[in-house]
């Protein structure tokens, strides 16, 4: 049995589950709050060292011993500001320990795509990106992660064209509406009132005058590439995640072989079977690595370009067991 882990309303998991179910049994373990409220988890360990782990959720039973392979897009729902009571936080972290233990058992049995949750979390670290990318021969724009005023000033002294990025994407609110922090150009003057005391580290990167972006989806040894050209979008030309879709053409392109080799080398070093990777391309055709996400989404690429990502992922998951 194949297990997909995440929000059961996530269309990625739904479409993937439908695709796999045409050939083999596949189930979704929902890690959303409301679904966990109606979930029974039982890990039982005997003194002889044997153990069992069974999860019941919405009339389905998931037995650890029956899982051939698990694929995760969301290990647990986000703890947001509404869950800050002691009771709610205790509930959340009890579930986190239980589920992460379950995932660790799957990893122990070599039943987890990308090795383990810990590996996925490690690989989405912005800081870890740099040494691995360098080893794989991929360029990453000059970057600074710091809260030290002198370091920030020094960064601007060497590069006047700078973007501000976020280290950690999370749900944010602006004017009472949900939003996200998009990458944006920033000037040294914007830091005139900056004081390092009590500040958290922030993420600055040299601005790359890109001509387009590339979103790569890596599945095993396959690298599928979508060219995303937001150059004509006034809203998305710095960060295409403004999703000005009418003005942002998406096209499937063949992955250049040299780039493909470097990406596969990177994935091998990071022990990743599935990952989405963002790059941009400048006017000299130089590739710049921007982000690595082992939980990356892809469905909008499929709708935009007809890329058969769900089908390929489904086949990969099934073949990995065979």
């Amino acid at each position, binding site marked *: 049995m194949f297990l997909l882990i995440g929000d059961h*309303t*996530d*269309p*990625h998991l739904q479409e993937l589950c439908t695709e796999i179910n045409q050939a083999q049994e596949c189930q979704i373990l929902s890690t959303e709050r409301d679904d966990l409220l109606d979930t029974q988890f039982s890990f039982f360990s005997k003194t002889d060292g044997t153990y069992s782990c069974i999860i019941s959720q919405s009339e389905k039973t998931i037995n650890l011993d029956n899982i051939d392979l698990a694929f995760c*897009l*969301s*290990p*647990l729902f*986000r703890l947001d500001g509404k869950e*800050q009571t*002691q009771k709610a*936080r205790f509930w959340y972290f009890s579930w986190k320990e239980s589920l992460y233990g379950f995932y660790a058992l799957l990893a122990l049995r070599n039943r987890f795509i990308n090795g383990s949750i810990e590996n996925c979390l490690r690989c*989405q670290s912005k800081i870890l990106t740099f040494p691995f990318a360098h080893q794989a021969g991929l360029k990453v724009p000059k970057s600074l992660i710091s809260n030290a005023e002198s370091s920030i000033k020094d960064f601007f002294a060497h590069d006047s064209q700078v973007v*501000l990025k*976020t280290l*950690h*994407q*999370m749900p*944010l609110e*602006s*004017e009472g*509406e*949900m*939003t*996200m*922090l*998009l990458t*944006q150009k920033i000037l040294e003057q*914007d*830091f005139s009132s900056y004081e390092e*005391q*009590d*500040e*958290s580290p*922030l*993420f600055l990167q040299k601005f790359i005058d890109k001509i387009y972006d590339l979103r790569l989806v890596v599945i095993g040894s396959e690298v599928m590439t979508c060219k995303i050209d937001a150059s*004509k979008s006034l*809203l*998305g030309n710095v960060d295409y*995640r*403004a*999703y*000005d*879709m*009418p*003005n942002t*053409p*998406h*096209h499937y392109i063949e992955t250049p072989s040299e780039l493909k080799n470097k990406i596969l080398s990177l994935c091998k070093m990071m022990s990743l079977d599935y990952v*989405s990777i963002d790059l941009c391309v400048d006017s000299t055709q130089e590739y710049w690595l921007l982000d690595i*996400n082992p*939980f*990356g*989404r892809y469905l*909008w690429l*499929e*709708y*935009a*370009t*007809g890329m058969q990502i769900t089908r390929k992922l489904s086949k990969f998951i099934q073949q990995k067991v065979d």
Partner: protein
Amino acid sequence: MKKSTIEPFVRNSDVEKTFTLRFLKENPSIDEKQNWIWDPEQPQILNIKTATFSGKNKADDYTNE
């Protein structure tokens, strides 16, 4: 009265500073009815929900704790 030595889970404090959030903006408003300069393969793309559209991120990246 006995004084509690238990550290509260969350201290409501304004001490922490996040300079980055000074640059947080509202979602860009996208007119979905405007002319598209390209043709997507499948019409479902019109219904896709992304982080910037809905806050409930389904279509694109979602990093986890």
